[in-house]
């Protein structure tokens, strides 16, 4: 067990390192004038020279890389080119937003997705099943940003025109300040994420449940006279949850790194929006910092999922 | 007069690594499927190889045609050592020896047309222009009793027996000298079995083939073989000409196997004594010391647990009949002691 854990942690660290190196190579090793980016197009040669010296850009590439990794290991992600603010503090400011979004959205999508999947699988080929399947496919097909925009249009704007400003976009209130306001600004984003991801989970759950319901042990349970709801919920669902749990871990990890599109559509100041703006402005330290962080979060989530799975199923460990 | 030897196996060993299960505490981490087998196969004969499931006969078969690489020992084909030959070196030998498989549903690629499958040997070895290949394939189909017009059909369109015929056609395409038949009729209905066995017999005569015929079914093997080898847990227990084996089996295991074959003749049945072996078949992961059969053998004595018996002629037999047993059954002796329950059928 310990060996397994160590191997997975080592593998995860390797992946994060690879992502960091990839980002470094892409941004610093590819010949381009980083100094000019910072100093601006009109900068004079002297200014450029000063910038280069300050950032250590005149050093050989390997030295720069070494310093980069060194600082990374110490948790120093540098400063924003634009605002000079420490990347770590930027991230610390943005994480609560992304985390709120991720947690609320994930609870919703689990309830909606798994719930819909179970209901659909309990009555296969019925009208309920077919409409759920079609609905799931409908939301599954849409890119997330479109769902967000449609929700904005129909649930915010139309209501607003009628005089009810229920779910305005564009702002974030920390939970500690006012839970009600916190939720109010997050409801539409939560549903945006939940509808799209929930649709995928509905499909996943439905498929796994149909497989489980076809098994012999379910037939035995039914023939023993157990009420249908027990058969479905207690027996079939339990074994269907494995792929759902696996997927959930991965999705949650990804989301914690910033639901980029949702944050952009709703103007939420989270990691996702931060990184998009940084990319458009070529603010390299922020880009690099957030990228590495989100990669680390996905790796951590995968690791957690693997550990849970191996606790449940010893065969995974031997693999 | 013994014919020329086509295949010689010398102390062939084949092992497989297995996951050691910590909870089990098993000694070995390598499973010896074939634990030192020496056999010879003579030109033109059919050598039957029988044993229970898991005794290693399929593994041995695959070692002969080099689908598996032996861990130790030698495989000689026509005098040449092919045990460690590379893929390139094996090329010319591949044309001379072929294999027929047990599962008529698994041995043909379901997504390929039958004509293409049979034509594989020609394509692989670069024989003949395409037009001529097609004609050859159709000739082969006719030879094995298939309708050549079904050239473009898929395996799913054929019955089990017909699919075996397709496999046979593929195997004889390049006129090999040796064909290893790995339980070729075990998955077929009894009536079809007879047809396929007859086909194999005809082809042997027409094409001068040598067969290594593997089966767990003794009655089938008796019908087709000139000589029979009995395998138990990775080793050969007994080798003899067919008639001698069935009438005068010396090894207790062979006797037990033979007694399990149902007798259809009522007279035979009355005289029939079944020997039931006690104990579970041991696992190949942890084989018994000495003679591998001794834990289940009604005749076992202390020597059997200590010393492994050699495969040599015993009890006055000639060189053709070899047995690996310290206490082989004499002529006319029946197998029964208190340790084994004798049941008169």
């Amino acid at each position: 067990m310990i060996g397994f854990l160590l191997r997975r942690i080592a593998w995860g660290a390797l992946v994060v390192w690879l992502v960091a190196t990839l980002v470094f190579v892409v941004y610093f090793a590819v010949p381009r004038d980083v100094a000019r980016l910072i100093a601006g197009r009109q900068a004079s040669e002297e200014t450029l020279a000063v910038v280069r010296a300050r950032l250590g850009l005149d050093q050989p590439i390997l030295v720069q890389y070494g310093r980069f990794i060194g600082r990374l290991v110490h948790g120093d992600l540098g400063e924003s080119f634009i605002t000079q603010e420490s990347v770590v503090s930027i991230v610390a400011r943005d994480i609560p937003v992304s985390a709120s979004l991720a947690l609320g959205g994930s609870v919703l999508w689990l309830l909606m997705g798994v719930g819909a999947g179970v209901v659909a699988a309990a009555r296969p080929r019925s009208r309920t099943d077919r409409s759920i399947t079609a609905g799931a496919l409908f939301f599954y097909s849409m890119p997330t940003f479109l769902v967000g925009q449609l929700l904005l249009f129909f649930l915010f704007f139309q209501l607003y025109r009628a005089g009810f400003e229920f779910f305005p976009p564009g702002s974030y209130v920390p939970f500690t300040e006012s839970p009600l306001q916190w939720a109010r600004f997050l409801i539409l984003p939560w549903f945006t994420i939940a509808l799209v991801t929930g649709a995928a989970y509905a499909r996943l759950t439905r498929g796994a449940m149909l497989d489980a319901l076809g098994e012999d042990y379910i037939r035995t349970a039914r023939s023993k006279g157990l009420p249908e709801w027990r058969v479905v919920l207690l027996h079939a669902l339990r074994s269907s949850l494995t792929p759902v749990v696996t997927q959930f871990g991965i999705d949650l990890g990804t989301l914690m790194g910033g639901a980029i599109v949702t944050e952009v559509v709703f103007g939420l100041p989270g990691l996702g929006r931060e990184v998009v703006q940084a990319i458009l402005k070529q603010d390299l330290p922020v880009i690099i910092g957030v990228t590495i962080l989100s990669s680390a979060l996905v790796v951590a989530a995968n690791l957690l999922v693997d550990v849970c799975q191996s606790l449940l199923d010893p065969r995974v460990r031997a693999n | 007069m013994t014919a020329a030897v086509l295949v010689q196996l010398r102390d062939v060993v084949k092992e497989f690594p297995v996951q050691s299960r910590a909870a089990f505490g098993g000694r070995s981490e390598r499973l010896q499927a074939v634990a030192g087998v020496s056999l010879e196969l003579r030109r033109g004969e059919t050598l039957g190889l029988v044993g229970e499931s898991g005794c290693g006969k399929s593994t041995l078969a695959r070692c002969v045609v080099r689908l598996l690489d032996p861990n130790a020992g030698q495989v000689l084909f026509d005098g040449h050592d092919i045990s460690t030959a590379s893929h390139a070196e094996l090329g010319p030998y591949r044309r001379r020896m072929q294999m027929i498989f047990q599962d008529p549903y698994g041995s043909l690629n379901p997504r390929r047309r039958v004509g293409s499958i049979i034509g594989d040997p020609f394509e692989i070895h670069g024989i003949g222009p395409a037009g001529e290949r097609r004609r050859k394939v159709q000739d082969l189909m006719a030879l094995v009793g298939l309708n050549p017009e079904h050239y473009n059909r898929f395996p799913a369109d054929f019955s089990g027996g017909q699919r075996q015929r397709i496999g046979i056609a593929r195997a004889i395409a390049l006129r090999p000298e040796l064909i290893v038949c790995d339980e070729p009729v075990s998955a077929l209905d009894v009536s079809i079995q007879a047809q396929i066995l007859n086909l194999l017999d005809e082809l042997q005569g027409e094409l001068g083939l040598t067969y290594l015929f593997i089966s767990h079914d003794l009655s089938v093997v008796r019908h087709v073989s000139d000589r029979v080898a009995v395998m138990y847990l990775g080793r050969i227990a007994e080798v003899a000409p067919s008639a001698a084996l069935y009438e005068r089996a010396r090894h207790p295991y062979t006797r037990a196997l033979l007694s399990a074959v149902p007798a259809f003749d009522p007279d035979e049945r009355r005289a029939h004594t079944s020997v039931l072996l006690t104990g579970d078949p041991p696992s190949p992961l942890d084989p018994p010391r000495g003679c591998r059969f001794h834990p289940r053998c009604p005749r076992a004595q202390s020597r059997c647990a200590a010393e492994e018996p050699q495969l040599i002629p015993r009890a006055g037999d000639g060189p053709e009949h070899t047995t690996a047993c310290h206490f082989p059954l004499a002529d006319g002796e029946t197998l029964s002691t208190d340790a084994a329950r004798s049941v008169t059928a």
Partner: protein
Amino acid sequence: MSAVPRIRGRGPWELAFERLRRDRAAIASVITILFALVVALAAPMLAQLTGHSPIEQFTETGLSPTGIPVGPGREFWLGTDGLGRDVLVRIAYGTRISLLVGVLASGLAVLIGAIVGIAAGWHGGAVDTFLSRFMDVVLSLPFLVLALALAALVGPGLGVSIFLIAFFSWASVGRIVRAEARAIREREYVQAARALGAGSARIMFIEILPVVSATVIVYATLLIPSSIAFEATLSFLGLGVPPPTPTWGNMLTDAMAYYKVAWWLLLFPGAALLGITYAFNVLGDSVRDALDPRHDQTIGAAGGGVG
């Protein structure tokens, strides 16, 4: 041989096609896709018909005196956008980009995925370990962030979009194909081919590939809508095909600014995007059912869902 008619067996492909033909949802989706194809091909004709090119700005007729886009009417059938451009014509041209990127990115992804998967599954050993690890790493990468960063770095464009989408999609195909190839390797017909002396290349191409091709085709079909969605997302964030080329994604970016006063900017491109992805997803599900009616798993394609 006498002149007897050649009998052709109905192979697995023909049977699958028959099943597909009878699936009404599949027919409907194919019709939708064909309609989109026609629109894409006929976009220049549409421009001529209406007299509006996709990039021409009609500040006189296309914008109200206060500079707000004009709604659907006789002049502009689907209205105009913030710069007075014809929405209908732009949607038509946007169809070209979406279909092109969708099909090419998906095709490239399954091509790479199939090759790598078959090679890893067949060879096993060090090759398999290396390729599997490689796929695991690619799958661990945060795809949207990296795609955006790379697009910004290299400069967004059509080819860049296709390549990036393919790069982040091929590994999930590769993993599935690898698993299948490994299973097929143990089948007896592959053993038979080895016994005949077939080399690795022949076995991979002639024995394994036909069997995995069903899975590959399903994936190819299902990756198209996720590629289209991915491209739309890139465009929406400003890192897809650069303006003034119209894409549904960048039209929807405009919609963000104007949706309160110009609903047509949101709903028409949105409907087009939704319609096409939905049609391809339905088709993909039907293809999967046709190729293996017993199959009832769900396949998750890269780029769909989260974020």
